[in-house]
């Protein structure tokens, strides 16, 4: 004998797609008399069915070669760097970096881009230490392009400091921080130039949450990327 719950589900599903025969329609009418939620549920299912109508479904499988490509990741990427505890309380760095952004002046889009204003910046330190300068290594840049990058962990987020030479003048580039969950946070944009560019940008993403820094062209293609060591939050 059919479970009454399953029978109710059958009839509601059939009603939602107008598939009831006369006997089933009478059976559903009797159920409605004692269960007024049925009409609400049929309406909800019909709304869901309406949404599905515009969603053609491709049931194909990925190529076997994709498995090889993915498993090669584990062989190609080294183990993460050791976790470094963050020292809190170096608030002097906050003021210095803010001053640099304000002094720089040039702002493109949502991010602040400023010329470096001297050598009073943060000093080298371990990744993730608030206020310390963390050197990062970019890879993948085109021939003739050099990118020297550093990060500074701040209480408000992560500052990216770049010295870039060789990118085509007038072309626009964005600096993006990629989080551990895959989310991208824009840090700012800059133009390529015939001279070496020094700039600082900030993003509201804490350093422990940043997995990589990417420089992208206007099509979104990654021009160069730096993978970062993990640090403790």
């Amino acid at each position: 004998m059919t479970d009454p719950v399953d029978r109710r589900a059958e009839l509601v599903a059939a009603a939602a797609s107008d598939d009831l025969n006369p006997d089933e329609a009478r059976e559903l009418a009797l159920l409605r008399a004692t269960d007024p939620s049925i009409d609400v549920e049929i309406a909800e299912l019909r709304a869901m069915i309406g949404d599905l109508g515009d969603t053609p479904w491709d049931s194909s499988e990925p190529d076997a070669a994709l498995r090889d490509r993915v498993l090669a990741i584990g062989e190609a990427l080294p183990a993460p760097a050791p976790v470094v505890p963050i020292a809190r309380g170096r608030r002097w760095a906050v003021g210095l970096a803010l001053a640099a952004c304000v002094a720089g002046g040039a702002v493109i889009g949502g991010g602040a881009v400023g010329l470096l204003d001297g050598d009073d910046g943060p000093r080298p330190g371990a990744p993730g230490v608030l206020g310390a300068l963390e050197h990062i290594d970019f890879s993948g840049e085109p021939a003739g392009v050099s990118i020297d990058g550093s990060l500074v962990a701040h209480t408000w987020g992560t500052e990216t400091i770049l010295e870039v030479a060789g990118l085509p003048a007038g072309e626009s580039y964005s600096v993006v921080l990629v989080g551990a969950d895959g989310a991208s946070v824009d840090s700012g944009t800059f133009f390529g130039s015939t001279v070496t560019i020094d700039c600082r940008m900030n993003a509201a993403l804490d350093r422990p949450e940043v997995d990589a820094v990417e420089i992208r062209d206007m099509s979104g293609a990654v021009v160069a990327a730096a993978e970062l060591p993990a640090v403790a939050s």
Partner: protein
Amino acid sequence: MSVSGSVIELARPSDRPLSSAPMPAPGFDLTTEYDAHSRVLFAFAVNALRDRGQAEDCVQETFLRAWRARDRFDPERAAARTWLFAILRNVIVDAQRSMQRMPRTVAGDSVDEPAAPADDTLQRLLLVEALAKLSDDHRVAVVAIHIDGESYSEVSARSGIPVPTLRTRVYYALRALRVHIDSEEDSHDRPR
């Protein structure tokens, strides 16, 4: 008929109390996780992007990001599948934004259907993700009846599955889709 088992895997909130204790040792094995989840991840990507090559690139990028962040993966907070889907969703959004900035070309391995519209909404992405997360039995039933437009009797004759079973699968599949979309929309609406 059998309708037992999980229709869809929904994100589950952490049941671990807040603590300053160190995170447990991560457990993310690339081979195991790829073999367990790549098929549904690809289904999500190829149906969101309508391009096989780009979908495979997105899946690869997802596992790359997961591998980089594997020491932060905490299986007590979310299943690996939930975590991978969250990463893939962001990768797909990035890919869609890139596509909207580029002239559209037709690759040899593109699927027949037209590319996703430039104004693709989060709602559609959530729906495709929810469909990908359905169990095979439930997805096959709901796709045949409500996307491909077959009747219950046609699907039953072709598959040998009784009509009542198909109806019940469709019922629970539609409910699961609604619950998934509502829960994801709620999580986006919540202040972070």
